[in-house]
């Protein structure tokens, strides 16, 4: 399969990439390309110009900045899971290790994954659970977008025209905070049919803060407030977790349906994987 004709240019800086994107409305940003190139090969996408940002040095770094870890948007999945700074964030490691395969993790990037916003991608659920924020830069300067305001819908984000993701800020874990990610994957593509990222903060034997996020379940990754609310001020037991997990994917929410899974089955899987992820975070699995 051959993509449509396309011009290619390599941007040397973020500023240059934004200028090229502003001047060429039909252009696409290319990082690892592991969503974009396959889509172009299938002719689902036919940009006039590819602006390659993968080798811009200011986009490929991982740094420990005291109260947060900052990950450059062009960092590959492999860069992230092999970096010392994120090793205690189990949800990051558990999700990253389940993305695609070795070869895909060597090329695919965090920034590319979230800007693409595939409704079954792993990172969005993790970034939601960890309370991350997304740094973006565009023709009107820089801004920061909270993860829970970034993923708006099916392949849709809060990025404006001409904006690109530059970095992801992840708050360091608080004392007593543990995280986990579990997914039921499509066996060939390894995309999440249901993926659940969680963060649980325990103090004096009670759960003081909880975030439970799903990917694959709806048209965008989302925080499930119902499960989180059912955990607050509860003791850390499997009974508590099971009761809270039963609230998953309820209420006024669109549930995806495809040839792998009906809506009812996805809803069931959401409860099962919320339970597994919470048990994992609490050391009860």
């Amino acid at each position, binding site marked *: 399969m051959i993509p449509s004709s396309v011009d290619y240019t*390599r941007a040397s800086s973020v500023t240059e990439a934004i200028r090229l994107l502003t001047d060429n409305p039909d252009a696409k940003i290319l990082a690892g390309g592991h969503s974009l*190139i396959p889509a172009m090969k299938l002719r689902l996408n036919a940009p006039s110009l590819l602006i390659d940002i993968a080798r811009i040095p200011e986009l490929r770094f991982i740094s420990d900045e005291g109260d947060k870890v900052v990950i450059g948007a062009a960092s590959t999945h492999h860069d992230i899971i092999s970096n010392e700074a994120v090793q205690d964030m189990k949800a990051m490691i558990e999700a990253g290790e389940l993305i695609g395969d070795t070869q895909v993790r060597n090329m695919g990037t965090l920034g590319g994954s979230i800007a693409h916003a595939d409704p079954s991608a792993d990172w969005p659920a993790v970034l939601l659970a960890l309370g991350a924020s997304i740094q973006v830069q565009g023709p009107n300067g820089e801004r920061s977008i909270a993860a829970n305001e970034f993923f708006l819908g099916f392949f849709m984000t809060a990025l404006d025209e001409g904006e690109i993701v530059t970095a992801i800020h992840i708050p360091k874990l608080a004392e007593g905070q543990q995280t986990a990610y579990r997914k039921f994957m499509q066996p060939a593509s390894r995309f999440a049919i249901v993926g659940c990222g969680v963060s649980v903060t325990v103090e004096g034997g009670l759960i003081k803060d909880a975030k439970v996020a799903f990917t694959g379940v709806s048209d965008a990754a989302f925080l499930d407030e119902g499960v989180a609310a059912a955990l607050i001020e509860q003791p850390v037991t499997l009974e508590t977790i099971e009761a809270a997990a039963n609230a998953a994917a309820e209420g006024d929410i669109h549930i995806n349906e495809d040839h792998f899974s009906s809506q009812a089955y996805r809803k069931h899987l959401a409860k099962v994987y919320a339970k597994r992820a919470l048990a994992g975070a609490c050391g009860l699995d």
Partner: protein
Amino acid sequence: MPKITVTVNGTSHTSEVEGRLLLVHYLRDTLHLTGTHVGCDTSSCGACTIHLDGKAVKSCSMLAAQADGSTITTIEGLATGNELHPLQEGFKEEHGLQCGFCTPGMIMCAADLLSHNPNPSEQEIREGLEGNICRCTGYHNIVRAIQYAANKSLVVSE
């Protein structure tokens, strides 16, 4: 058209390429290195695996232009003269192939695994090969071939 310079198996090549040219087609059709195969053409099977700056990647899922400035190793670059690479020898000794179509990708992916984990367990080998599909062997002999290479390399380095 983008002009690219890549070092493939130790030799530098400079070419003008179409923006849309996939790296695997550049290797096969322009450089005539046909050991790298196109299998599924959808990033699933791993037959097109090469090393880009020392890391295994699927050359059917990236553009030749993305490789500009990089060092590439293909299956043709592993042997030293007539002396097979330990992985090549392992696949031969342990009957790690039947039709052989997936073998170059298997070996390149296994080489990436052994570069950072020289003595992997059977489970680690199986996980390391999750991006490579073989339709003949049932994988058992592929795993043995990689264990053979790991053992041989360990003996050599001792």
